[in-house]
């Protein structure tokens, strides 16, 4: 079992192991889910609009930019989630800038090249246009943060900003925030890990406070916080935070789940990562029928 981020994220989203296939070209790292994701199960069960089911992704995870639906003969693109990320914002911005005109020939050419480059990131060539609601979201984002990319937050602070704005403007029913900054520990500074966790912690505090303050979310929102993989605890390494070397601790993950209907306490038995999807499905009242794992029953009141 590969303990990389894309694989772990797909384990969480599909409730299955190895439910993906390589969709990469030479020297790329790109996976494509081959099983339905939670987004599809949820939208099919409750007839939700695409902007009510969101995946929020970071700049350093281009390989996870296309996890909005699973390829195959099941639910598919019609039940996809919307993606909020800088990549999607740049697609919106370049399209609008080209439509707005007023550019010199050189500027137009550069913009067209930038847009082509952004579009070719999707190897399937199947990036759907955003819904009108998400278009409006990006229009407001652009008004606030402009075109230069230098005013909006970056890293995991960006993800928190996208998530809180989405909660206020799009009112998603299900949202996955793909935090990623702890991975900068690969550069060799243990402080990157702890500092990134502090940034995520601040982000979670904002998200929980926002849910508590908004009647739309208050008393009906469940938070599931879980990593996509563990980290090495190699006692011989200078920076023991890798996760690519099949160590036991890289396979060991945890989850904190809280909200209405969830009891306080600790589930003191080994639980598979594939159980997370089934647990989320059970708590929201739908079935992740193709998930391998079963819901963690004892945590429900």
């Amino acid at each position, binding site marked *: 079992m590969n303990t990389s981020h894309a694989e772990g994220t797909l384990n969480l989203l599909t409730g299955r192991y190895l439910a993906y296939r390589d969709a990469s070209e030479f020297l790329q790292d790109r996976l494509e889910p081959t099983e339905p994701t939670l987004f599809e199960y949820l939208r099919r069960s409750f007839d939700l609009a695409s902007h009510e089911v969101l995946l929020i992704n970071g*700049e*350093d995870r281009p390989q996870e930019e296309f996890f909005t639906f699973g390829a195959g003969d099941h639910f598919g693109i019609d039940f996809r989630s919307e993606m909020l990320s800088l990549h999607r914002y740049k697609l919106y911005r370049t399209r609008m800038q080209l439509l707005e005109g007023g550019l010199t020939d050189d500027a137009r050419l550069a913009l067209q090249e930038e847009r082509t480059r952004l579009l070719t990131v999707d190897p399937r060539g199947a990036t759907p246009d955003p819904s009108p609601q998400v278009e409006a979201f990006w229009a407001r984002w652009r008004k606030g943060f402009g075109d230069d*990319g230098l005013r909006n937050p*970056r*890293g995991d602070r*960006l993800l928190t900003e996208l998530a809180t704005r989405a909660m206020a403007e799009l009112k998603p029913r299900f949202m996955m925030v793909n935090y990623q*900054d702890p991975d*900068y520990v690969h*550069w*060799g*500074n243990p402080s*990157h890990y702890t*500092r990134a966790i502090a940034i995520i912690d601040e982000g979670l505090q904002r998200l929980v406070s926002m849910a508590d303050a908004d009647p739309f979310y208050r008393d009906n929102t469940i938070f599931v916080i879980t990593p996509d993989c563990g980290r*090495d*605890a*190699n*006692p*011989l*390494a*200078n*920076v023991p935070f*890798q996760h690519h*070397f*099949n*160590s*036991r*601790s890289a396979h060991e993950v945890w989850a904190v789940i809280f909200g209405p209907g969830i009891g306080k306490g600790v589930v003191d038995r080994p639980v598979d990562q594939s159980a997370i999807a089934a647990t989320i499905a059970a708590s929201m009242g739908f079935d992740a029928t193709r998930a391998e794992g079963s819901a963690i029953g004892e945590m429900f009141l």
Partner: protein
Amino acid sequence: MTALPRPVARPGRVARLASRFLALVHGGVPGTLLTALPVTSLIALGWLTRRMGHATRTRFGSAEQMPGWLFGPRETGRITRALGGLGANIRAGLITFAALLVWTLPFTALWLGAWWAGWENSFNKGYEQAFVGPSTYVLGILISALVVPALPLMLAHLATEDRLGAAFELRRLRSVIAQSGWRIPLLMALTTALSLPFAAARGLITTATDWAPWLEDLIESQLSDIKSQITLALAAWAFFSLWFLRHLAARIYARAAPRAAGLKPGLWDGAQATEAAEPARHPSRMLTLVWYLIAMGLAVPFTFLILAGQFLDHAWWRWTFHPFLTLPWPG
């Protein structure tokens, strides 16, 4: 019945072998132990430099006692006799370390800066300036490729002259390099090959919990024992490799420097090599350039091995303290 002749006993050869073995132990055991720690590795570095100087000057006709770890020359006073060797090792170590830092910092500092630029760029999301880290690293590689092949002969010259200023006598160094020809790429190839275990060790350490999962269950004292064994093994490899490489460099210098001195007596005036100056032909500039370019090409994999080792198990000091670049300490 004819009696078979008695086998001829050759105690001389056996004695020579035993003597060599004892010399290896006498040099290698203290050298390995000293190389295991950064501060004491300075003594090992000094000893290696003194051995180089002894080897070259002996070839130039000088009669000197072999440098020891602790004791000074026999004909000196009690204190000098008791600790003179250690003092000389420390002095030579400091001089060598200073010279190596001046020679290597221009590129190792760039590597350190490239690494810093990389994580700073990652963490603060300056992707618009993402080219800074890689281009700084590549610049460091280019400078290192130019410098690293010259280091062994620079050290041989420094050791022979026994003064810091010798490390920066670039014209003399250039003339020795010109006389060394194919031996420069040979030294570089050996340096690259012998540095492989350092990168491999980083890989083995990083993947250790994969091929030895029991490591995660060890208690602190057991881990401490394993760490000590790894440190000692790497120190032994570093010290013996350096001993071999420096010995080879001394031999190459001892052959090339007298020829260089014979060709340009004015340039070498006052240098130890003039004692053995001999007539030589002017080497072809083109051939010298070709050999050096090959050596530069062989230096690039050496730098990539440092990068690979750092990628696998990072420690910032290893950008500047590779055993073959500065202190023998393997880090």
